[in-house]
């Protein structure tokens, strides 16, 4: 199928299909398909400056198992290790992870309309939004499902598509206000690779998700934290949270509060208190702010240790 007809028919690109197959079976997605698994880019290339370029079809398992990635971008490696299940990670691709659709149980139900399919309002907002957002940025209350997007935002990564270069994660996913879309790619636009800047000297990173069981659950809240600590002080800090908003969120107030501060328990406690600034929890999601604070504190302590 040509790109032009893809645009005309709202066809979907299919990489490994770990998201799409379920939607095809249930009938939530029914348009034409264009398979890209055998034609796209995969693998990790390293620049002389230490920057990585990752093909969009590189599997999550390959990223999770790569020793060079673990050394340069430990927050991304840990994120890849923490998502889905081993059998899904062997198939799922980085590009697919970024472009996947919402996991909202209303969206996934073929018999219910919602903003993302046919409907004119979000049924979860007035209904059961137990796993919904705690930062209410738009008309849809489902959190963005991409764990890798949060990690890549923390690493200031850029996305290259078949149409555009140099997209930030914010460019790719938008500001969360448009509940009808999960990303800002144009019809027929496809992610081809992801470029990460070279790591900073001495930086560390960590990732964790809060879930009810031990493994294999979509995060209630997840945080990727990155920091360079020099002379016992936080220099650069990046804190990105997922599971709490329609897009991964940088916790800018926390980041600012830590900048230049001694990497100790008092500074961390103070910054933790700022994690939920700007939050607008729904009736059922106030708990996510407690978990968010817990994760921020946990990760900052491990980075400062």
């Amino acid at each position, binding site marked *: 199928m040509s790109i032009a007809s893809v645009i005309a028919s709202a066809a979907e690109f299919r990489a490994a299909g770990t998201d799409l*197959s379920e939607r095809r079976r249930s009938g939530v997605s029914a348009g034409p398909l264009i398979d890209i698994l055998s034609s796209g880019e995969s693998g990790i290339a390293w620049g002389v400056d230490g920057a990585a370029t990752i093909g969009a079809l590189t599997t999550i398992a390959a990223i999770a198992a790569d020793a060079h990635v673990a050394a340069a971008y430990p927050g991304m490696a840990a994120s890849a290790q923490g998502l889905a299940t081993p059998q899904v990670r062997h198939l799922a691709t980085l590009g697919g992870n970024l472009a996947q659709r919402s996991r909202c149980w209303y969206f*996934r*139900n073929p018999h219910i309309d919602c903003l993302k399919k046919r409907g004119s309002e979000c*049924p979860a907002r007035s209904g059961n939004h137990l796993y919904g957002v705690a930062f209410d940025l738009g008309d849809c209350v489902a959190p963005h499902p991409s764990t890798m997007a949060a990690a890549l935002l923390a690493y200031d990564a850029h996305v290259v598509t078949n149409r555009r270069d140099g997209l930030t994660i914010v460019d790719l996913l938008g500001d969360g206000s448009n509940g009808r879309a999960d990303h800002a790619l144009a019809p027929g636009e496809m992610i081809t690779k992801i470029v990460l800047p070279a790591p900073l000297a001495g930086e560390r990173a960590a990732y964790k998700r809060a879930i009810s069981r031990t493994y294999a659950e979509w995060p209630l809240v997840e945080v990727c934290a990155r920091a360079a600590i020099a002379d016992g002080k936080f220099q650069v800090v990046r804190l990105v949270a997922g599971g709490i908003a329609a897009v991964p969120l940088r916790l800018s107030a926390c980041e600012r509060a830590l900048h230049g501060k001694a990497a100790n328990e008092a500074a961390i406690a103070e910054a933790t208190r700022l994690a939920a600034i700007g939050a607008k929890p729904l009736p059922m999601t106030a708990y996510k702010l407690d978990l968010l604070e817990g994760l921020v504190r946990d990760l900052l302590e491990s980075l400062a240790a």
Partner: protein
Amino acid sequence: MSTMTVNGCPAALPDDPDALLIDVIRDRLNLTGTKLVCGSGVCGACTVLLDGQPVVSCLLPAQAAAGKTLTTIEAIGSAGLHPIQKAFMAHDALQCGFCTPGFVVEATAFHDRWRATRGSGIPSREDIAAALSGHLCRCGAYDGIFRAVAEACAGRFDGNAPIAPRLEARDKVTGLARYTVDIRHDGQLEGVILRSRVAHAKIVGLDLAAARAMAGVAAAVSLLADDGMVRFVGAPIAAVAAKDRRTALQALAAIKFACEKLPAVIGLDAARQENAPVVFDRANRKRAGNVSEGGGGPAPWNGNVRGPSAPFSQKAKRAKGWLTDARAAHDPLLVEETFRVSTQQHACLEPHAAVARFAGDQLTVHISTQAVHETMEKIAKRYNLAHDKVQVIADHVGGGFGSKGSLGVETIAAIELARAAKAPVRVVFDREEELSVTGYRPAAELKLSLLPSAQGDLKALSLTAHADTGAATNSLIAGLARLIYPAEAKELVDFDVLSNLPPGAPFRGPGGPPMAFALEQAVDEAALRLKIDPIQLRKRWDPDPNRQRLYDWAAGLDVWKNRRAPSSQSGRYRRGVGMASGYWLYLWQTGSSVELAIKGGRIIASCAVQDIGTGTRSVIANTIAKAFDLEPQDIEVRIGHSNLPRGPGSGGSRVTASVVPPTLLAIEKLKAEIERTAARPPQPGSNAPWRELVAASPDLVVSAKRQHDNKPPLGVRSPLRQAGFMGLVFSWILRTFNHVVVGAGVPSSVQVMEVEVDTWLGHVRVLNAYTGLAIGKLAAPSLARSQAAGAVIQGIGYALYEARETDPSTGHVLSSGMEDYRIPGIADMPRLDVHFDEAGFDHVPGGSVGVGEVATVPTSPAIANAIRAAIGVRLTEIPFRPDRLAAALKGRDAA
């Protein structure tokens, strides 16, 4: 057309871009060892090796396998069992076996990788749990899986195949075991069901003509009741059989009808409101489903509320008066609390499924059922057929847990479609159907008041339960509190609250876990207030001899003796130890019969019973083998077919106590026949005289029916005889209408749980579980342990993770996939210590009673009590998810 290599052979791949690898494997290549369960990559049952890597075949487009090498369970062990398969067999790392092929495929890959890189080092529990984190087992065989994988990696299963304690284990670890979903007759059609998308409506003008006229469609039938009503989202309207599933689904869309929507009401709170729409008006009340295994007594109705039903109250007015006085006097010993339990889905991994085939006037139905014989009778009655014209078959059943005990719509649809299409029809529920309309343990609100006397005895107890039964009745929760902790007075009141949700169904100890969740927390609270050890308080209040022994065992555990004082911790991670007690009834089914035959020197046992993962085959084989100096594998056990001698249903933990006694009787008869017909006596001094006699015996057949128990010792009675006149009435009802006798003695369980609470992330982990069980002598010890372990992990699911979620206005079940309905994974399994106290049932021939239900009753309150000890807060609503922990730790009400 592209191809792949499957188990060494080339295979064509379909051009259809929507064909998934699982469908090619199962439907085109007929490699049915690979199972389809969740369809969303969550459970791992469909795991295969693609170029050596474990992947989920349920999400993989078939075309993605082009040019690749695929290995399915059928190729693993085909040239000699893999060490992992042998270890799974030896450690009984399986029950129903439906998840087993997926686990085995993944574990062999892990094993091979491990040994290639680590030699014979033993992987830790953490290594194994991480590797198998993409697999789910609903029976909860995780304890055995940990042991099996560790020992296989350590090289302990490189030799000959071990003797498996489970008779059919080899078929289950190799993918050969055939379940109903695997049945494939020539010319078989696929049946699918049209379901209501609204919660309450009258369906009129149902027109199947357009669907029937479609190419590839063989039949369409109405499934509407005569009143044309649908009372929940998912209520069946019609069914279609077609050449394949896709065609059948397209035909559903062609069915025409008008839907006259009616006001609907969803859930426990809305349905109790004054002006709530009524689900069943007076004339239609008998159309409601049944959430219990037995029948219930009459009860008044008020709108959607059925009750009060209080047959087991005892001096209720006095209890009420004392409690009112204590409340007025602010008695510090008065414990009062409202508890809430969630809706628990059975979540069987094999969905409800039936395959019906007519050959002339002979109907054969493969059904994933817990009751082959009774289902045959129900089919015969419904369709006015002679019993010998109906054959129900269930060779292997992929889990039931109570949800597969009745004649379900999957069977009715399959039969009616097969009759109309004049061809075999298979109906297999998809995961959305399985997790929404196949029944559940109802949620409930439990109001409890417990008053100790000043002397520290139990004076009065009041428990009122409102159960969220959907379109069903007959919940019994509060009444079960009559049979434990005798008090001077008890007020025990049950209500069903009906709403436009799918009907509940019996689930493993119906009513038991919710009752225990409330009562065992209240007793724990009373112990705190009386400043007495909770085990010692139970020893004082609970005279049951079986539990008295278990209390002594529990009190002696180091984890109990060394536990920290409640609420003494303040760090991030806090540990606590809690305990609780539980009981279930000892039931057996009258008329249960076992036939023993000798054919060609081999013993064949036959009974129309079924094995839903519980180990029925092994229970029978072990009993016979012991009597004849044989190994269980020497016995051929024929079950799962309704034309065998009448056997019990797998409900009420009744199978062992129903089949072992007649097996023992039959053994005596067979021995007498062998001796009477023997050509010559065994060799003098033979160490296995019976084995020799059997081998040399002419062909013989004997059979025996379940005999009565022997007289129990003084003081051991049927618990219903302690429940006054209504207890006798219930005994009579059960015996007359359900063919079930409530025997003497009380199967009991006492559990001690150690938990760790992460107060930052609201996460609860059960570290160590100790389960003490008094269920008499063990007919199959390894399998009894497996049942006990599975009951604990299912109880952990109930306590920590599982809850059906619905949309409050439309009544759609939102948690209809396995990522949103969260059953425990292997990493959630604690270290487990199982203690069996084998006394107490010597009056039962063979001395064995069932284990499945009693073992799950105390788990949720034991965890609640442990959390209370850890964080100083009593959580009153399960599941104890991070949202509830976070709220409780902040002193906030959870949403």
